[in-house]
């Protein structure tokens, strides 16, 4: 195979994989926006908070240890046990549900009927508050993330050797695909399938869709808005946990993890704020688009590092022709 063509295919495939990771973050935004019309600025921080909580629970870290020690003059940092990944994930999901309840109970319940910009500002406040709580609760140190089903069966990292060998035999060039990206793609597919099935086939899912379609109508047939919003924030918290695990496995769990939200914004602009398939397709287009542009034009002609701005430029282009995004609902306002 022509070497340049092989490189292009490799970049394309890796763009798809990167796109899946972007979509994982975007999914959380979509869930909340679709159900409540809130653009959740705190979604990136929720991913950070979830990942820090997971690692903290796994490592038996005492939450708020610095605060406790400062107030009571103690010297406690660890419980001295290690929690299995599955149990730690379950406990973290519990914490995220508790967070969803608290957010609803103490913030958004008091803001019902407010302008979208007020709700957006509230999520900005929530983001910084949550970042501070995460810092107080688990500390600012970088933490390695190991999610393992059993001893030696952890999230895989590194090049997929089978794929490299097979493509080398077939095309004379071994393609690089990261094992973690493959796992992330499978998990993202399962997550989307699970969310779609939940929305289609469960009572709560149907209620969630009803609220997304028309709050007033859903309320009139007895759907509890409060419950649905807690449910939606919990689901977004779960999605944030998955995104936090996948991104945290690459870089360790640290405060810059919250910046992954920046990667989701062009995906949302392109795919639409209200569509789960839109988040996936948007993620894939942004992933492939930015990687191919960097490979074909950015690195050879523009000095490289074009991915960040190109993703936004691509999203803007789509916005010009389709403001609601590829899969978003068209906004019709009558006067």
């Amino acid at each position, binding site marked *: 195979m022509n070497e340049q063509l092989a490189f292009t295919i490799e970049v394309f495939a*890796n763009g798809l*994989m990167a796109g899946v990771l972007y979509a994982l973050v975007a999914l959380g935004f979509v869930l909340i926006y679709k159900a409540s019309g809130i653009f959740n600025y705190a979604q990136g921080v929720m991913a950070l908070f979830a990942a820090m909580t997971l690692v903290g629970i796994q490592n038996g870290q005492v939450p708020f240890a610095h605060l406790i020690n400062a107030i009571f003059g103690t010297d406690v940092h660890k419980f001295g046990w290690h929690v299995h990944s599955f149990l730690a994930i379950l406990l973290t999901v519990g914490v995220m549900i508790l967070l969803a309840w608290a957010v609803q109970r103490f913030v958004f319940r008091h803001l019902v009927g407010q302008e979208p910009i007020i709700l957006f500002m509230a999520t900005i406040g929530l983001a910084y508050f949550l970042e501070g709580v995460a*810092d107080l609760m688990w500390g600012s140190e970088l933490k*390695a993330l190991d999610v393992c089903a059993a001893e030696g069966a952890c999230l895989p990292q590194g090049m997929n050797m089978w794929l490299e060998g097979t493509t080398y035999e077939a095309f004379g060039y071994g393609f690089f695909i990261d094992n973690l990206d493959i796992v992330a793609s499978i998990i993202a597919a399962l997550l989307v399938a699970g969310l779609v099935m939940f929305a289609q086939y469960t009572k709560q899912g149907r209620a969630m869709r009803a609220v997304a379609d028309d709050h007033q109508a859903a309320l009139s047939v007895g759907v509890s808005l409060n419950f649905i919003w807690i449910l939606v924030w919990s689901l977004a918290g779960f999605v944030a946990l998955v995104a936090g695990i996948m991104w945290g496995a690459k870089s360790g769990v640290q*405060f810059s993890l919250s*910046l992954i939200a920046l990667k989701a914004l062009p995906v949302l602009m392109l795919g639409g704020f209200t569509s789960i398939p839109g988040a996936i397709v948007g993620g894939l287009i942004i992933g492939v688009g930015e990687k191919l542009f960097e490979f074909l034009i950015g690195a050879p002609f523009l000095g490289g590092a074009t991915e960040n701005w190109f993703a936004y430029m691509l999203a803007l282009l789509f916005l010009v022709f389709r403001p609601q995004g590829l899969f978003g609902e068209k906004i019709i306002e009558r006067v």
Partner: protein
Amino acid sequence: MKYKLGTMAVAAMMAASPVLADLVFPSMSYRTGPYAAGGIPFADGYADYFTMLNARDGGIGGVMTSVPECETAYNTEKGVECYESLKDTGGLVYQPLSTGITYQLIPKTTADDIPMHTMGYGRTSAKNGEVFTHTFNYPANYWNGASGAINYLLKENAGDLKGKKIALVYHNSAYGKEPIRTLTELGAKLGFELLEVPVDHPGQEQKSQWLQIRRDKPDYVIMYGWGVMNQVAVQEAANIRFPMENFIGIWWSGSENDVLAAGDAANGYKALTFHGVGKDFPVFADIQKYVVDAGKAAGAGDQIGTVLYNRGLYAAMLAAEAAKTAQGIHGVAQITPGQMRDGMEALEMTEEKMAALGLPNFGPSFKVSCQNHGGDGLVGVTQWDATAKTWSLISEFAATDKDLIDGLIAEDSAAYAAENNIEAGCK
């Protein structure tokens, strides 16, 4: 009764406010935000050294020290605010720990007659003390780093890098671009090809860059990264099976934070340094005795001996030694910031002095002067052992390309002097 209340109020005020007679070494730390993982150990090391001096020696020259801390969150605006607020404490020397903050503070500190120490970061040409009278960047700067990496590779290749391809993976910012000119000049001189690979902030996604490296097959990769960019780069290098022993980071890409997340895959990764690693130095016994065991550690006490803790401790030690020098020059124990500047400009670090301080072979020997605020620019190389989870110094602190770097510094500082109407010369 009124008298009693008044006495109590005065006593309470005296207890609450800082003792004005202290020698103040402000700490512009960042314990929060995206870069906190790097900021915490440095701040702990800086504070713990002064705590030890107070407990063990009764301060410096008989005067106790204090280390008021201000949180910059590695943010330039906050950093400038910190400087302004800390000025009231009578701080003797400021260590902004950020190239962005440094650039903002260069004119301010000069106008305020307060010295600033930017150890291994900041404006490289500040080495020229005739232009940058109040900024010091000893013992090494970014350009020493670039040259030090090439010198190390020269040694690895029997003095010949002709035909070799060296990639520079850098943070796409003013900091990351610092070594490009030096490496370009060295490439022309030594015959190696330089491949520039920028990574946009924050560097969480680097697939394109490492696919490019996989395609272009450089012999070596040098990295100027910071924060999450480092951890991702080390992981991606491992993913494409780039030989770790051929991957060298600058000192801001060479802490435990940068390699622990990648686990065993990071084994063999190298990084430049201008100070010792580990805690196999006598001073750490004193830190344990007078600081940690006494419950006075700045943090949890679990960072001692890590690369960035040691860097903070080294910065504190150099500041303390400069203060001693200033006390000697001016014959007073209670020095002013202006006198501290004189002490920094006359600082001489010898191996004998380092050994006496409990830090034998911890850093290079160097001498500061009016013309040379950057020391001799000696650079060492460390290597990560993923099994033992330790860094080891694998080279001596070696000289860098002085002629080339001094030429570049003269050029850059002359441009700064012309822009700012500075008449170069010694105070």
